């Protein structure tokens, strides 16, 4: 398994990205709008009889349910897991951390593994919705191999609740064709150009964390601010900008590709994909701030198949498996063992692995933003204005 | 009436012709609904189209109404050719088979509908006045605010009638208007319709498959078969002088004896019945020697007796009908046929019983030689 992964070329990697890109309707948006994530969660659980019965001794059951983000895995890895353990991986896809939390709070059960983002752990622990991890059941987890920056949010009060999956950044993508070939690199420029010559061409996320965060950065405040005065400034900006926006949506790839939109708040994976296909679209991090994030594997308290949950997480932590994940979706890994196995081109890609000094202004999302009623309400007011 | 010499398409003499069909045919695709219809309808007349379903009588009516444009021929209304004049421009109104009353309107609104379409507009008061008068004419006074579905079949029929006659049409067309009524109501309505027609002087054209209805109400009847007119005439004429076996059979009952015409020289022609028995009977002029014909004799024209001239027959059955007694008779050559004996004759001579032998006779003029079609 290891050999062919090591030999994968940049060309093959980009082909993989291309195949991902072809589903230009991002599933995250699709699920967000339809609420189909919940529907699959219900439907998926109804047909266990159709699963192959395991022929393994000391087995972990016939299935394991994974709640995750869209296009965030290499499906071949799941097949390999089923082959090894006999347990089928059932994938339920979600649109946002807020939605995931909302579902768990409402008493949704049936998931065994989920993939929360750094800033949500405190609340999951507070709400008693997350299971502490027993490291002895995760032999592939080597805490020392992970860059602490992308791993520390998985522990709350010294207890380990999540192990890192991937990390990434939230910046901006601009079609430089419309700006005399020049990119921009700050949220100040982002909103100013939007209210000027990019009027009607800019997309902001339908996501409070990044959209409000960017507006806060514009004013030089923290991405995570919950200060009422600072939020009021951010709101004023957003309301002023709204008439100049092309859309408020997290499905920004299609309009960026067809030329309707010229500028967008952008996740690094999407930025990589856009840039690979349309070189004049540049991805940049804000010099005045932005988000850096890290996703983790975790087990909800309500899981009824904890053996299977541990088995799946352990399997995914195997660097040989993890490297395939990275090659599939293009988000960086915090696991040095996996990093070492990546082709050199990728290690040097400025979008995937930006220089440290570019990352330094970025902030991890803060727990408080997840539940802060003012931020949620600000976003809603902005949208319904 | 009843002088009995109308030509096929002639209206009663001395009256103004209001409508005329000349060589009218109507095809629906390949199907011929009516073929070469010619007839005149004169003012104040009550004319019926009589025939079995599918004979084209309704199509003829719809051509007069303007719902169908004839494929061939000419339709004349009030002196003008109106072949393609739309229904709403014709001075003609129709009473539909299931009345086709407007369900969202009251009786009065239905009745006033035609007047409300008039341009220039009629004054409201005048319309109201006419509506109330017409309600009285059809004896529905007090029902003006009733909804259609709140009314009985008979009442609905009167509304339909009122809705048509209020417009004082040149022609009132009635498409099986009594078909939905029960027998007793039908009788009453027949009489009422006749009265109404006399009272209003409107020309009525009725379509029906009920010969009794046609016979009792009409001035003239137009017998139709397979899209063609078989005969037009007064009820008596059709009964006494049918021009074909079909008409004789359709209007009243008759005994038919098939044969071949062997002589047509004199007043009475000769027919060899069943290839053996020569019989004499009155004949029309258009029959040729050697043609397949039949002799038609109405049962009531035949007499049964025990002595005198006649054919020997055997009585098979006797049915007492009050006014008449009906005998089923068998003759060895002519086969089975009916004789209707009036009450007086029955009183004069003791009745015949099944199995009795008897003599049957008739006036030669009562026997008609008819085309066998």
């Amino acid at each position: 398994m290891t050999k062919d992964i090591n030999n994968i070329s940049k060309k093959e990697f980009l082909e993989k990205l291309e195949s991902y890109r072809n589903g230009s309707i991002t599933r995250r948006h699709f699920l967000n709008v339809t609420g189909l994530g919940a529907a699959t969660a219900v439907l998926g659980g109804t047909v266990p009889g159709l699963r192959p019965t395991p022929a393994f001794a000391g087995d972990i059951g016939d299935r394991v349910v994974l709640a995750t983000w869209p296009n965030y895995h290499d499906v071949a890895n799941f097949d390999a897991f089923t082959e090894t353990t006999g347990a089928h991986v059932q994938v339920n896809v979600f649109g946002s951390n807020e939605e995931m939390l909302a579902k768990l709070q409402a008493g949704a059960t049936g998931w065994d593994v989920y993939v929360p983002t750094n800033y949500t752990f405190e609340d999951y622990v507070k709400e008693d919705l997350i299971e502490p991890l027993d490291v002895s059941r995760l032999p592939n987890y080597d805490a020392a191999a992970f860059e602490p920056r992308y791993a520390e949010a998985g522990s709350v009060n010294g207890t380990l609740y999540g192990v890192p999956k991937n990390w990434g950044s939230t910046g901006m993508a601009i079609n430089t064709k419309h700006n005399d070939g020049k990119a921009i690199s700050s949220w100040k420029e982002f909103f100013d150009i939007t209210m000027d010559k990019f009027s009607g061409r800019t997309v902001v996320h339908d996501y409070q964390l990044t959209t409000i965060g960017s507006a806060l950065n514009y004013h030089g405040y923290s991405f995570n601010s919950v200060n009422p005065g600072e939020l009021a400034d951010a709101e004023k900006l957003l309301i002023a900008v709204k008439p100049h926006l092309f859309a408020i949506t997290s499905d920004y790839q299609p309009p960026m590709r067809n030329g309707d939109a010229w500028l967008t708040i952008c996740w690094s994976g999407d930025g990589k994909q856009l840039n690979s296909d349309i070189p004049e679209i540049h991805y940049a991090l804000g010099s005045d701030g932005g988000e850096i994030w890290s996703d983790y594997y975790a087990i909800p308290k309500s899981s009824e198949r904890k053996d299977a949950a541990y088995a799946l997480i352990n399997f995914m932590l195997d660097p040989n498996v993890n490297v395939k994940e990275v090659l599939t979706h293009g988000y960086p890994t915090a696991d040095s063992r996996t990093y070492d196995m990546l082709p050199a081109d990728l290690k040097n890609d400025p979008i995937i692995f930006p220089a440290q000094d570019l990352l330094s202004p970025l902030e991890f999302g803060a727990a408080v933003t997840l539940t802060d009623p003012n931020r949620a309400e600000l976003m809603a007011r902005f949208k319904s204005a | 009436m009843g002088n009995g010499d109308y030509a096929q398409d002639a209206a009663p003499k001395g009256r103004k012709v209001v409508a005329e069909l000349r060589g009218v045919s109507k095809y629906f695709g390949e199907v011929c609904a009516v073929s070469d219809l010619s007839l005149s309808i004169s003012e104040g007349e009550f004319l019926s189209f009589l025939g079995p379903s599918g004979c084209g009588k309704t199509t003829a009516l719809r051509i007069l109404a303007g719902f169908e444009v004839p494929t061939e021929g000419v339709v004349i209304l009030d002196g003008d050719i109106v072949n393609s004049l739309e229904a709403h421009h014709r001075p003609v109104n129709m009473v539909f088979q299931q009345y086709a009353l407007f369900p969202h309107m009251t009786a009065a609104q239905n009745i006033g509908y035609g007047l409300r379409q008039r341009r220039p507009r009629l004054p409201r008061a005048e319309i109201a006045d006419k509506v109330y008068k017409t309600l009285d004419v059809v004896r529905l006074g007090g029902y003006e605010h009733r909804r259609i579905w709140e009314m009985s079949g008979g009442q609905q029929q009167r509304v339909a009638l009122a809705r048509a006659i209020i417009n004082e049409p040149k022609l009132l067309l009635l498409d099986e208007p009594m078909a939905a009524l029960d027998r007793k109501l039908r009788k009453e309505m027949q009489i009422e319709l006749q009265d109404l027609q006399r009272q209003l002087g409107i020309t009525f054209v009725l379509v029906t498959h009920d010969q009794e209805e046609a016979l009792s109400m009409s001035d003239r009847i137009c017998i139709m078969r397979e899209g063609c007119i078989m005969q037009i005439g007064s009820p008596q004429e059709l009964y006494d002088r049918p021009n074909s076996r079909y008409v004789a059979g359709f209007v009243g009952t008759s005994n038919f004896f098939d044969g071949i015409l062997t002589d047509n020289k004199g007043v009475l022609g000769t027919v060899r019945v069943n290839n053996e028995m020569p019989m004499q009977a009155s004949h029309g002029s258009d029959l040729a020697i050697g043609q397949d014909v039949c002799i038609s004799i109405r049962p009531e024209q035949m007499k049964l007796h025990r002595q005198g001239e006649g054919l020997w027959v055997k009585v098979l059955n006797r049915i007492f009908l009050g006014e008449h007694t009906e005998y089923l008779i068998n003759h060895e050559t002519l086969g089975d046929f009916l004789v209707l004996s009036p009450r007086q004759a029955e009183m004069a001579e003791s009745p015949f019983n099944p199995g009795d032998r008897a003599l049957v006779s008739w006036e030669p003029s009562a026997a008609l030689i008819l085309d066998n079609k």
Partner: protein
Amino acid sequence: MTQRTRNWLLLAPAGAWFMVMLIIPLTVVFIFSFGERAPSGGVVLAFTFEQYGNLPARWAAFKNTMTLAPIGTLSALLIAYPLAYFLAVKANPKWKTILLVLVIVPFWTSILIRSYAWIFLLGGRGIPALLDVIGIEGVRLINTPFAVLVGIIYGYLPLMVFPIYVSLDKLDKRLLEASSDLGAKSWKTFLQITLPLSIPGIATGCMLVFILLMGEYLIPAMLGGGKVFFVGNALVDLFLQSRNWAYGSAVAVTLVVVMLITVTIYMRLIYRLGASREDVSIM
């Protein structure tokens, strides 16, 4: 079994369904609407009108819904009526079934997928590009109220066509002949007979479309680019993103109340329309 028990048995499944699927959830939402947002989302039961006091913050969503829902309903009616009329009255009976199926076929595809088709058609490379070719430049369609209206009309057209079609189809064609026979020109026959007798179909179609539009959130989300915001979108946000169940419930209760009021007024109007026709003097 008495007739009475049998009647109850017949009603039992529907009754149970209504209880479980309608009454109970509505009651829960009603109770929640007086609660407060829990610190990390969800609801804490209480008795406060605070959530209702915050309603003005969703004024724009209500305004959008209450403008675009009636406009959408009327536009759908204007497009659906001639279509239904053609299908029921004019179309060759041989083709009728096929044409009807063609009206339904889009229903077999999810509105979501169909909306994506509209995203393309209304987007920069769709209709605006065509207009560009004939010299009309700079037309923006996608992410506008117009785009949402197009999506709404398109999505709800069959719902409007069918009730109208049914009422026109069962209309006794002899009534039209009778009207013509009594001297009415064809357009007057339409106004006096066809239109009044198809009012039940129109009323049903409008009611169906309007009620569903009041709760619509998918089409504005897809074709409005998040800039045309309905109450439905506000609800999705409140329950799935900001997890403010109490406020969400208050908005939902308000929507239901607004819907009930509108529908009641609407029914009154329809009833009046019917009644006024009765009252007109016989002229």
